[in-house]
């Protein structure tokens, strides 16, 4: 996920909105101003490939859930091995895409910078794993239906100019038996798209599924090498045919990585893959960190890339 931690003033505005002290329009203005601020912060930190910060996202799934017929946000559950929560989607009927969920914020972010901004969507396997399925009562049918909806969303993001659509599949590492289904779902999402599609894995180890995962019909793979350092060798020994985003900065711990440690990881990657196929990134969304820590980490990441003398494609926000 590319959630950036919410800055203080937006949190205050949200509280004021809850107390009806500000209007919907004023809150909307605050959202847009915050997206612009987050984009500017990423630019200042030296990040090359930006995100809109997913400022409006309470969790990975809910923005999409709200735009689907047949699904509604349910109760709060603990989100993987994080002491944070998400609203689990409750599937009540056939899934149908009602309209774009993420395009407006994408446009706001892209309009605030000349640098490329990537779009992020939840993956269908993760969506189905985290959902409560009262309608299909069949994992594969639900995942395929969600993929069709995500395909529509991806088309809308492509139309808005997104150069990369990143599909987040944090649950995939724990679902080796569903790798073939995950691949079929990815084919559905990417069907006919001209823009790049990427898959991002994190939280769970992917060694067991790497052979299949590296053959997915995508152009960009994101892998956690910070919390799971063995996955660096896994990628370097058997790289996919495309670009790799190395999640070398731990987005779930406040300890600030050493610049040289990061640089050594990136040097190994560029030596093996060539500079134009290597990106440096946090290993998960930054929402798990305090805002100030997240800023320091992104600046450090940019320093590390600088230390490799620009021999990478660049730094990517998550």
């Amino acid at each position: 996920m590319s959630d950036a931690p919410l800055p203080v003033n937006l949190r205050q505005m949200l509280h004021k909105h809850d107390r009806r002290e500000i209007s919907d329009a004023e809150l909307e203005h605050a959202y847009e101003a915050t997206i612009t601020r987050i984009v500017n912060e990423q630019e200042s930190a030296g990040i090359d490939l930006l995100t809109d910060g997913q400022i409006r996202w309470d969790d990975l799934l809910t923005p999409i859930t709200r735009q689907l017929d047949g699904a509604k946000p349910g109760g709060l559950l603990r989100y993987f091995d994080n002491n944070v929560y998400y609203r689990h989607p409750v599937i009540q009927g056939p899934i149908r895409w009602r309209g774009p969920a993420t395009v407006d914020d994408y446009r706001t972010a892209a309009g605030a910078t000349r640098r490329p901004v990537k779009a992020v969507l939840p993956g269908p396997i993760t969506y189905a794993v985290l959902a409560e399925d009262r309608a299909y009562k069949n994992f594969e049918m639900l995942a395929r239906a969600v993929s069709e909806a995500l395909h529509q969303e991806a088309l809308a993001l492509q139309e808005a100019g997104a150069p990369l659509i990143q599909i987040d599949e944090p649950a995939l590492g724990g679902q080796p038996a569903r790798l073939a289904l995950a691949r079929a779902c990815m084919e559905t999402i990417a069907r006919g798209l001209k823009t790049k599609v990427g898959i991002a894995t994190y939280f769970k180890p992917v060694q067991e599924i790497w052979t299949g995962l590296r053959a997915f019909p995508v152009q960009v793979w994101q892998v956690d090498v910070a919390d799971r350092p063995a996955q660096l060798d896994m990628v370097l020994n058997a790289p996919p045919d495309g670009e790799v985003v190395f999640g070398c900065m731990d987005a779930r711990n406040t300890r600030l990585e050493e610049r040289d440690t990061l640089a050594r990881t990136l040097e190994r990657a560029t030596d093996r893959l060539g500079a134009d196929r290597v990106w440096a990134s946090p290993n998960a969304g930054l929402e798990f960190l305090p805002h100030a820590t997240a800023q320091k980490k992104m600046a450090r990441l940019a320093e590390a890339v600088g230390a490799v003398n620009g021999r990478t494609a660049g730094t990517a926000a998550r």
Partner: protein
Amino acid sequence: MKLLQTTSVGSFPKPDYLVSARNLYAKSQLSREELGELEKKATREVIALQERLGLDILVDGEMERGDMTAFFAEQLEGMGISGLVRSYGNRYYRKPIVVGPIRRVKPMTVPMYQFAQSLTEKPVKGMLTGPYTMTDWSFNEHYPSRRDTILAFAQVIREEAEDLQRAGARYIQIDEPALSTRPDELPVAIEAMHIVTDGLKAKTISHMCYGDFDTIYPGLLELPVQQLDLEAANNDFALIELIRKHPFTKEIALGVVDSHDHRIETKDEVVAGIHRALEVLRPEQVWIDPDCGLKTRSWQEAERKLAVIVEAANQVREELSKKPKPAKAR
């Protein structure tokens, strides 16, 4: 031995006056002593409520605790508290950070345990957060690995458990709600719990919730505590089917009402839940309680949920007493 003893998991809702007082204290508009008096007042009310309802094993309600990890982090050497981290939506909390070697400076939970126990003849549980959860819910800037961090927490929690036992605690509960999040780490969580509980005379209990038990059961039964306190109501007693497949070898405190739902379960629902549990568990190994701490409920909701538990347990206990005992095999 009384069958189907009733208890609660740990936290109770804080009365409004205490919530206001905590806010004033945070703004330095109230002294620690003044806040402490109100915490004691609330604890008296928690104990009185449990006695009135007829619960068997009591808790102090954790009136002096905010978050179950930060409460300990604020008192341990080597720990700090981070800036705000999002919990959900626009809700944030301050997450503990391990910044140096973890050391216990003084007993952390003993004074409130002693105060609560002084108010009642019934046993009050000593309540701790386990080493695995302390690690999983803290940032770590000091120890080289998660294992090192977990084992360091285990040492200080052991010291606290010994002090609770010395202060008279007959029941010590070490909560591990994070335990199921990384099934591959269950062995180190078990190793750490050995450090905490080996040789203690008090009955040891561990509570866990909102996890995927399928991934750690039956390995979970290796956790060195005598009783596991597990949620059942919130997932429609799916736990019972797990136990049907692999027998439960410890005592269990079974969560029979959903702690995170405003709706008050009926007595019949709770009785039906207990009956389901008794299909796979012996009455001698079962205690009855809510799924989790009650701090997110209103005072009235907490009271009504606990009242239903006591009524349902009483009914099933009476049913059991009328059942003919099986004849002893010759």
